[in-house]
């Protein structure tokens, strides 16, 4: 353990967490704006510091709602931190933390760039990257279940129970859907998976069914529409976070959007070549600083595309019914994923 490693790791952690939080804040804005556009509305377009109208382009940025996340964050911070009577205090305080920590931890193994200098652009270059991700993601359910339990009221309880059933069910299809990728690549390290895709082409072409199942399962894992049964505003008031307010609620929000970020990053890494592009010579590890930065930008651009898909789909679908959700998870995706594994294995066996 040398000092250089520790210092650079700390720098990378600080930058990655900062960037992820920034993306989270602005994806909330994107959510509001895109929903507005889809529904023929304008969206947030007023919030601005008073001097913005004197700066060229300031009016445009204000119309775009660039300052809305700052105002939202400030609001959450200065709001009264209210604890309802009758909640189970310890769990009530613990639940937001437990749901936000796994959400943030997932990004640790994702290679968000090739190299800058002699530093690999990944916080923890684990050999079992995918297993780590699945392990951490499955912890995310505890926060939600605990929140539902701690609130000591019926609707959050419903939300918590639904989420536990939903997330455990879809984790299985999610894990099964990734196995063909591992079979093809033969490595659990995410960096190695990207390296394989750089030479052979994107894995989405080799395992399209895996990608579809993984994508839909990650919609379910992040509790997004059409699988937002744990929240289900229309039927469960607010679901598991009904009793939460101010910053504790904001932490759940943060966890949801961080999960979106990490799911998008996983999709990009596993199926869409991570930081590589097949042209402009961006398909091998960077040799210069500019190329390293370009790799990071490529990764973020691909990730943002999937974030937008997440948001887009939310404003398009009605929610699944509970039995439909279970039916889809257990009776459609799980057999499909198993057959997919079999087909991939047979195909690989025939080729070898």
């Amino acid at each position: 353990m040398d000092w250089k490693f520790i210092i650079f790791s700390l720098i990378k952690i600080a930058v990655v967490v900062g960037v992820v939080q920034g993306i989270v804040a602005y994806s909330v804005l994107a959510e509001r704006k895109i929903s507005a556009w889809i529904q023929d509305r304008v969206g947030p377009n007023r919030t601005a510091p008073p001097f913005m109208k004197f700066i060229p382009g300031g009016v445009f940025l204000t119309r775009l709602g660039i300052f809305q996340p700052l105002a939202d964050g400030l609001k959450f911070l200065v709001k009264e931190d209210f604890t309802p009577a009758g909640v189970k205090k310890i769990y009530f305080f613990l639940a937001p933390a437990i749901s936000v920590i796994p959400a943030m931890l997932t990004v640790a193994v994702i290679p968000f760039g090739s190299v800058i200098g002699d530093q690999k652009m990944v916080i923890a270059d684990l050999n079992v990257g995918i297993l780590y991700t699945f392990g951490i993601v499955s912890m995310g359910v505890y926060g939600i279940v605990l929140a539902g339990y701690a609130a000591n009221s019926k609707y959050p309880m419903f939300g918590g129970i639904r989420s536990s059933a939903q997330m455990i069910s879809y984790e299985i299809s999610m894990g099964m859907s990734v196995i063909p990728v591992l079979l093809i690549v033969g490595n659990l390290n995410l960096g190695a998976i990207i390296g394989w895709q750089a030479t052979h082409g994107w894995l989405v072409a080799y395992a399209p069914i895996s990608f579809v199942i993984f994508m839909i399962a990650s919609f379910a894992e992040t509790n997004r529409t059409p699988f937002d049964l744990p929240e289900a505003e229309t039927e469960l008031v607010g679901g598991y976070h009904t009793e939460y307010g101010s910053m504790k609620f904001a932490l759940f929000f943060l966890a949801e959007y961080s999960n979106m970020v990490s799911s998008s990053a996983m999709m990009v890494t596993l199926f869409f070549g991570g930081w590589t592009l097949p042209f402009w010579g961006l398909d091998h590890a960077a040799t210069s600083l500019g190329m390293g930065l370009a790799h990071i930008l490529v990764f973020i651009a691909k990730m943002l595309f999937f974030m937008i898909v997440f948001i887009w789909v939310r404003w398009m679908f009605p929610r699944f019914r509970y039995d439909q959700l279970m039916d889809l998870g257990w009776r459609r995706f799980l057999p499909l994923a198993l057959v997919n594994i079999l087909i991939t294995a047979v195909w690989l066996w025939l080729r070898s």
Partner: protein
Amino acid sequence: MPVVVNRKVLTFWEKLYLPAIVGGLKVTLKHAYNTLFLGKVVTMEYPEQKWTLPTGYRGAPYLVKDQDNNTKCVSCQLCEFVCPPKAIRITPPGQNGQKADRTNAEKMPAEFEINMLRCIFCGFCQEVCPEEAIFLQKDYSLTGLSRSEMIYNKEKLLSLGGEVGGIQKWKLKLEEAKAQESFPVKP
């Protein structure tokens, strides 16, 4: 007797959900495109854009002046009586009070107050007024920093009301009277 609703039997292609998903994506994308690039927005950005109010819109009641800039109100207090939320308060001039501005009226109110926080914009005052001195006009966004500020007095009501031309009942009556006087008397 239970009614059996025959569900449509879905084909394999429909059961995949994929056509529905693609259709949904197309619809939302079309709406987003229309909003973003063609400016088809249903939102009206309120303080900058406002409704064009129809004639007969019932906004805040104001006192009006006649064509000679005289107070039309004669302090009959009918509006005060009819006002359901009791928002109007009229102080009559009394026996030795100020005379009316116009010659064909006996008196005018010494003070005329409408509490706009109480007013429900019902229009009874306009309906009951024999002098057509109070009209519900097109102001709907009345704001103030204090409760006392929201009690509009006579001076303020008259300045806000302005002159409502067109409805000149007394002129009509005068013409009627003149027409009757110049009635061609046949020998």
